[in-house]
């Protein structure tokens, strides 16, 4: 079974370890570290850009796992000094305690999100006193400083927060024909006869649609697909023919005949 990651980005090493151990429902003895590394690399690619912090966290956790596993594989446990054995247990207890703490706060933050979501359904009254009372306040500008005016203005001019900030707009648009070819090679074999509109259904950028089209032409040139079009501006239909000659431009390891 290939190791697949659901989606959310791992937030911390302990968290990741916990995630791996509880979610995978396997004990460390059985985990193939190679699979985990592969799975993680795949996740990184999905994220379209290297999250250095997440990557170093992952390295840390991989090292911890490796060390734990190596210890177990070592023969001659009977010869282990009592001190060393105790130290190992102590180390394990510390790690366990931190994992549990980390998990506890993660779940607590989930509860806070639910509270916020519920509270978001109500809006407070913020109207303040109406004009009838505006003459009362002796000093309406009390506490208003030039600095506060600037802060207020900057807050107004700041980009409105998005529900979820993705960094896709910062990372360069992924629009290499080579990548698109690789994507199509993954997608097409199982798809049967499929329309181009369907193939680009999830693609929003115009550039990306063009690149997908170029990739299709590339595959056509290599004889890997057949293209049909009923007439001018008619629907373009794509049929997967097979793997002939596609290896040349595609990452071979991702390709499943």
């Amino acid at each position, binding site marked *: 079974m290939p190791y697949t990651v659901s989606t959310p980005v791992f937030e911390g090493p302990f968290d990741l370890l916990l995630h791996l151990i509880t979610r995978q429902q396997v004990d460390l003895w059985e985990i193939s570290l190679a699979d985990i590394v592969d799975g993680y690399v795949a996740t990184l690619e999905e994220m379209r850009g290297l999250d250095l912090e997440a990557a170093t966290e992952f390295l840390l956790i991989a090292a911890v796992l490796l060390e734990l596993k190596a210890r177990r594989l070592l023969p001659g446990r009977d010869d282990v000094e009592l001190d060393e054995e105790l130290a190992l247990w102590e180390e394990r207890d510390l790690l366990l305690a931190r994992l549990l703490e980390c998990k506890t706060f993660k779940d607590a933050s989930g509860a806070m999100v639910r509270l916020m979501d519920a509270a978001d359904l109500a809006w407070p009254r913020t109207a*303040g006193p109406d004009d009838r009372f505006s003459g009362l306040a*002796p000093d309406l500008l009390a506490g208003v400083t030039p600095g506060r*005016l*600037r802060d207020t203005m900057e807050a107004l001019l700041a980009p409105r*927060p998005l529900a979820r900030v993705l960094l896709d707009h910062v990372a360069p648009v992924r629009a290499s024909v080579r990548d698109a070819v690789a994507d199509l090679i993954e997608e097409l074999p199982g798809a049967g006869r499929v329309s181009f509109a369907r193939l680009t259904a999830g693609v929003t950028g115009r550039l990306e649609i063009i690149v997908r089209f170029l990739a299709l032409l590339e595959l056509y040139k290599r004889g890997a697909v057949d293209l049909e079009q009923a007439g001018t501006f008619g629907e373009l239909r794509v049929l997967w023919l097979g793997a002939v000659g596609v290896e040349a431009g595609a990452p071979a390891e991702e390709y499943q005949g």
Partner: protein
Amino acid sequence: MASEAHRALEAILMVADQPVVPALLAQLLEVPPARVEELCGELAGAYRDDDRGFELVRVAGGYRFQSHPDLAPYVERFVLEGQNARLSAAALETLAIVAYKQPVSRAQVAAIRGVNADGVIRTLRARGYITEVGHDPGPGQATLYGTTPLLLERLGLDRIEDLPPLAQFVPGPEIMDALEQSLRPGREPPAAGE
């Protein structure tokens, strides 16, 4: 009596910070404007019958909740003693926009704030913090507003140009967070707009 439409009106008017015109209410509720007038009339009547401390009134072309005139003495004390003896958030925003963008029209203020600012502009004018400074030469000849010497004096500024400069690009905190999360190589976060 408390239909969905009545309740929706109450909810909207409760969060509005100035009178809401019936046309907008009608659009939000998907009923004719005449029906909005009826519904508001019924609500106002109910509050009267229940002897509430607030009322729903039609003022400046729209509807709003306000405190009942009977209770003005309490409200006055609250305004004087309470935390409310200061500019509301809406007024502060409007003042900041006029200060930095003058000369500026109501429509421009509303565009930046995302909500209509007429009531607040009236208050600020009444207090002498902003004033009419001219008219837009374009069609409609919208009134343009600017700040007054009184405001400068109260802010302790010599000239309006002495306002602190705005940062050129002010990313929201979540954008900073996301950037830091993905760009930070070590423990040193990028030095950017605090």
